[in-house]
């Protein structure tokens, strides 16, 4: 308490220094408190209150949680989201690793940068632009993809308009957008590995596959875990791609958790239900992040 009083009424040079430091961080602290901390607490509190038409709200305990967690619409969106990310996350990580390994082998720095730039380009498009370009490629009548299929004799598919194909189709968009980002992280890590490691293994008679399995992948373990977690979080929060194309359709086949949260709050104005979903999203991603920290704290054995 005395420290705080001296922060406001500095007595000497050291106190003035402390006050200066405090004032430097104050704007950021105030901002984050009002934009994240207070609203997060409000979200948690809001999930226990039902707002009556007219504005009065009443405490209902966990009844909104019971309502949302017994609602099949909610579970459909959770299952859809998990099904989407279980397709796009492994695909992105594996393809990014393959691309980074290939790029790392290119000798000329100039050409490596040119090829890397091509992988990275999709990252500069907004998710909306990316999804809409792909919607045009997927177009059942005039789309490029069905044109390619017809060239090899496969009948046209409905892609985003099909109950079974809509989720894999959106997963492809996610892979396309995120591939360059993951590749860059892997490539940066690969370039920090001394070349002698591979040379030594090659002299000992290790084949290409053995070198990959026993040297490269173990050394990249921290980056692989990090990229997996980042992809899980990114894909769990999928919204823009779905909102701009299918709007959750056809027949809720691409309804995701954040889409449902958005509709519940800003289309049907059921703020209590939306707060329950907000708490659910927060806790789910919290578990994922804490898991990441636990895994990261383990030292990597070289």
């Amino acid at each position, binding site marked *: 308490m005395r420290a705080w009083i001296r922060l406001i009424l500095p007595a000497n040079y050291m106190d003035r220094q402390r006050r200066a430091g405090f004032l430097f961080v104050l704007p950021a602290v105030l901002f984050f408190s009002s934009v994240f901390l207070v609203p997060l607490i409000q979200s948690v509190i809001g999930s226990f209150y039902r707002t009556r038409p007219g504005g009065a709200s009443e405490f209902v305990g966990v009844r909104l949680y019971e309502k949302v967690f017994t609602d099949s619409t909610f579970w459909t969106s959770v299952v859809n989201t998990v099904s989407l990310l279980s397709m796009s996350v492994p695909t992105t990580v594996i393809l990014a690793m393959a691309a980074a390994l290939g790029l790392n082998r290119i000798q000329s720095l100039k050409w490596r940068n040119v090829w890397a730039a091509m992988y990275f380009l999709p990252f500069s498009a*907004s998710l909306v632009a990316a999804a809409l370009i792909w919607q045009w490629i997927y177009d059942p009548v005039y789309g490029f993809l069905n044109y390619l299929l017809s060239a090899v004799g496969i009948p046209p598919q409905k892609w985003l308009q099909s109950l079974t194909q809509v989720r894999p189709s959106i997963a492809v968009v996610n892979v396309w957008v995120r591939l360059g980002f993951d590749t860059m992280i892997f490539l940066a890590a690969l370039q920090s590995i001394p070349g002698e490691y591979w040379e030594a293994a090659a002299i000992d008679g290790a084949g290409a596959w053995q070198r990959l399995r026993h040297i490269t992948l173990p050394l990249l373990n921290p980056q692989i875990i990090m990229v997996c977690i980042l992809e899980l979080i990114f894909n769990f929060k999928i*919204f823009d791609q779905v909102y701009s*194309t299918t709007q959750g359709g056809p027949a809720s086949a691409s309804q995701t958790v954040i889409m449902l949260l958005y509709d519940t709050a800003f289309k049907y104005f059921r703020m209590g239900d939306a707060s329950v979903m907000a708490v659910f999203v927060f806790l789910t991603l919290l578990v994922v992040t804490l898991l990441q920290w636990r895994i990261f704290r383990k030292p990597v054995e070289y």
Partner: protein
Amino acid sequence: MGRGGARGPTRAPLFRRVALLRVACGAISAFFPFFWMAVTSLKTAPEIQRVPLQVFPDSWANWQNYREVFTRHPFGRYLLNSALIASTAAVSSLVVSSLAGYGFAKFRFPGRDVFFFGIIGILMVPFQSVVVPLYGWVSRLGLLDTYLGIVAPDLVSVFGVFLMRQAIEVLPNDYIDAARIDGCSELQIFFRVVLPSVKPAMATLLIIKFMWNWNELFWPLIVVNSPSMRVVTMGLISFTNMYFIEYNLLTAAAVISVLPILLIFLTLQRWVVQAVVMSGLKG
């Protein structure tokens, strides 16, 4: 992208050629949608409906779609809105983040570590979890449908505070103390000594923040009502709100929306890649 030269074990030329082929195939598939967007934007409506499909446009100088994008919707206004919002967010978060970064890196005061780890902890709070109360605040303050309302949650970024603290922490203390002995005030030290030494970090933050906010959809969608306040991402979606989507117009609009970021990326590739790799490391 780091050092050049040979990496990895020596390989037979054939093996290397196969690897290059794989890289090239991947890069071309990554690039194709961009190519498809560009050629579609140069076609007329009958051209994109031709059967069998025709890859290249009849004329490479058909700019009609680009003109029509601006007459069909106030797309110029959308671009202006996005530019305003993204640059405000970038500059404001640069100022607040570097102030905070300096405070966290070079001062001791009660509660410093609690504040710092509190801010880093916010990385674990998804924006979607706070959006409902935030909407309530913005609405109560009368900021719905205003620039301030759209930009408010993006004025500072956790990544920025983290980045600037890391950059300022490695500056030698003697440097700052020397300025202090010369009689500079704390703010003078900040602007004349600290900021000029962390220009790379500042550039990184500006680029990545501008990119993020230019491409944002979720929050603007919630606070914007009137068509004149729409941002570019919403503008793109307004081309799909018809029974039949005119993809030649939509792709032209998409090209325009991607162009600023693409130009930043191509001219500053090294910075952008560094920025993105760092923003990924934030966790």
